[in-house]
């Protein structure tokens, strides 16, 4: 039995693939490349594979980790074999056998994650960004099972840094707590930031399509609701590191 780790990036259109669908994609690619994961025993066997930390829909990443157990030999150049099968948008960057002494599951070892966030719109974004981190409390509504409650996300905002300050655009890095029951979704973070400073905004909605004749149709769409994330800057959030309990990136 071998315990294997794959580091990979998730970009392009595939950022719109959910955690569950990505897991299914991995299962298939592993089976196609003769890296078949072991299955658990029992009435409802499931493959022994997991991702270190789920990535929210719409967020890019350059540092995802998958771990799985396999009975067979991993063969020649598993990295190249995987990449030959992945669809565009997922690209494996490292393949290794899990070092001895490393925690049993990566997921249980994860403590935080870093993200790069691109903020656009106003000239004094850096100042506002710093001010935001100086706030003692940042309440955000949380809905669970139909009941809304207020949570303070400030304790989950661990670190921040300005990566690049360009006129009108700011590239910032934030480290947010992650892992067992204490994960701050980066999109919830940006939601709080944009709620506090409504003039900071995403430009991702610009220029959808022009040059087509105006739609000639009008019909009822009873009860259809669009997701309220129309102004979310999701396209510009990239996960850059998953940090373990020692505060360092995994492996």
């Amino acid at each position, binding site marked *: 039995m071998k315990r294997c780790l794959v580091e990979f990036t998730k970009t392009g259109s595939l950022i719109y693939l959910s955690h569950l669908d990505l897991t299914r994609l991995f299962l298939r690619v592993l089976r196609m490349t003769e890296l*078949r994961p072991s299955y658990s025993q029992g009435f409802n066997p499931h493959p022994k594979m997991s991702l270190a930390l789920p990535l929210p829909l719409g967020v890019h990443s350059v540092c995802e980790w998958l771990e799985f157990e396999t009975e067979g030999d991993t063969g020649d150049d598993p990295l190249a074999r995987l990449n030959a099968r992945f*669809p565009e948008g997922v690209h494996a960057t490292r393949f290794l056998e899990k070092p001895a002494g490393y925690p049993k599951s990566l997921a249980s070892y994860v403590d935080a994650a870093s993200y790069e966030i691109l903020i656009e719109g106003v000239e004094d974004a850096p100042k506002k960004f710093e001010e935001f981190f100086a706030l003692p409390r940042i309440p955000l509504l949380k809905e669970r099972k139909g009941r809304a409650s207020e949570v303070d996300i400030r304790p989950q905002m661990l670190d921040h840094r300005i990566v690049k300050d360009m*006129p009108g655009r700011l590239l910032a890095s934030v480290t947010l707590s992650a892992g067992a029951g204490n994960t701050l979704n980066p999109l919830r973070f940006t939601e709080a930031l944009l709620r506090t400073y409504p003039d900071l905004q995403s430009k991702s909605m610009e220029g959808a399509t022009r*040059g087509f004749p105006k739609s000639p*149709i009008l019909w009822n769409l009873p009860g259809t609701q669009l997701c309220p994330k129309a102004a979310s800057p999701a396209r510009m959030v*990239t996960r850059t590191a998953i940090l373990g309990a020692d505060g360092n990136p995994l492996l």
Partner: protein
Amino acid sequence: MTREDCLKILEAYGAPEHVKRHCLGVGDAAREIGFALSEAGFRKAADVGGGPLDTDVIMTAGYLHDIARAGKDHDLVGAEIVTPIDAAAGDVVARHMKLIFPEDPARITEADIVSLADRTVREDHYVGYEARMADLLRRYADQPEVVARVHKNMDLALRLIAWIEDFCGRDFQQIATGGAVRIEPLLERVERPGRYIGGEIGSVRKDWHADAVRFCFAFPDLYEIGMSYTGFQILYGLLNAQPGALCERVFAPAQDMEKALLEGDAPLFSLESRQPVRVFDVIGFTLQYELSYTNVVRMLLLARVPLYTSMRGEADPFVIAGGPCCANPEPMAPFFDLFCVGDGEDTLLALCEKLRLWKAEKAAGGNVVRADFLKAAAEIEGVYVPSLADAGKQPVVRRAVVEDLENAFFPARPVVPHIESVHDRAAVEIMRGCYRSCRFCQAGFACAKVRRRSPEKIKALLKEALANTGYDEVSLLSLSTGDYPGIERLVTDLMQELAPMDVSLSLPSLRLDSLKAETLEKIAEYKRTSLTFAPEAGTQRLRDVLHKQITEEDLMRVLEIALPLGFQKFKFYFMIGLPTETQEDLDGIAGLACAAIAKAKALGAEHGVKYNFHLTVSVSNFVPKPGTPFERERGCGEAELLEKIYYLKEAVRRAKGANFRYHDTRMSHIEMLLAKGDRSAAAVIERAARDGAGFDSWREYFDYENWLRAFEACGVPAEDRYTGLDAALPWAFIEGGKEYGREG
């Protein structure tokens, strides 16, 4: 260098993610501009080389222009990397930062096109020249020499853009994006965006600019429904295997995406190249069930294709249909330029060939119009062109039949859906046609002739599909898998071969009455969930009328074998509203349920155990279908069906121990009206769709009152008007069905 080759080079060099994305975005834009100019007939000036633009150089340079961006002097370092691959492209990379556009726009070269693309693409998407220059001026506000160069180039660039627009006769954004729809802003607003992104394992993206017939396969229901349909996998694979054809996909957008498209003023797009559906040569819908008709209307409206054949002009695509509903094309006839009746494989290839010739003649300046292609197409077997049909004088349209299934195309690399679908498994069609002739069954009569694949072929196809998909389940498809000669042997062999690969076998359409005990034992080894049985009617008399060759003894025999094997859940399927049906037949349904429950008890007593026996009686409403011996039977009204359901519900409740499930009678009523409709139904379908109907087969969206209002508004009676031997059936010219009488 192809896009894929360049991506591999970028990855091998270790270019960061955002650089890769930008390179691909610029390369795509440069390529589109290059192609647009070439297509419009552009030739380089003699003193800059003459001849057509070299799109290879444009692509290689575009896709690799920032390969060394992470370091210093990235233009020069990049050129050193690219030059050994393509010297001309290396030269473009070396100059891309400091290039000044030519004073005379007609003297542009490959380098200018790459630079222009670079100056209109931010990150990986087109934003336009002005937006990018604003970026640059802000970023380099403290470097006067850069600002001066930007300013100097700006006039020249804007003049160049205006000249290109003029030369190609199109808006520059349209040119640089290749007309593709930018879907990211839409994706951010909808549930399950994975439905719309394409790029799955097994999906094919052919070169949009290749000389090919562009075919858009349209499925009028959600992605996860359409992707489970094997007929699509066959036709998609078949068309893309032809050098002269390109096939992409579109599914009905869910209601939230529909709203996002309307609000974003974006047209319906294909999954592969995200081109508006209306720029394809052909949009081919599959009509699998009548309750998807309103989705066809909504998709055409979203695609901004004129809804009616009579409204389409020379620049519009041909809108065609295939699938089982073509047994009566009339209700949808005004929307479709032509129908493919019967098996689609040969018909589509023949159509593509005729379309290729028609396009070539048109491109060569020939005096050809849409009607010329339709006339040529009407000669193909299985093709029905409504606009050429002379009322009452339409000759019989014969169904196309693929005679040799063994050697017919079957995809070895099926598309693996991105999101969980109805059937996530590798499937092989083992048999087409049906040995039975159940008189209500449209599918059975549509392809009555039985054709099979050999066990060797089936195994080979499955093996290949598994290697190319990574699926852990396979399925054998046909109308009645249990009737495949040698099915026991095939199932046993397959289970043996698949088990070590952790692959399980699923057998839909398995008729339990035809199965041997050993096969049931094999199935029991890995699946003990539920067994289904379809007697369809409650008495032997009515089963004989249906030609349904199942007896009560068959059913009891299966219980005798299955219960000791550990099966607990059983489903019995019945229909109500059948021809000649009486009260006695309805009572017979409850009677069969009672008999099965008693049998389970008796078997338990005999074996000294108490079997867990869960029985579900599932009742659907009979809809007389064109092309079957029952096509002249009267379809029941809604109230009539409902009365029968209530009676039966009470009878089954008294039987104690059986669950009762039934199909929505209102849906069945509309299904019947559409199945047996004539041309007047088209207006009703359009009215209903415009008033909100869509996804009618989904209970949560089906709106019966809206349908009734649409019938009334169009002056069409909401009842079956084609019953009895004297009725002139609107679909009489489609081969099949009508020659069978009730006794035949």
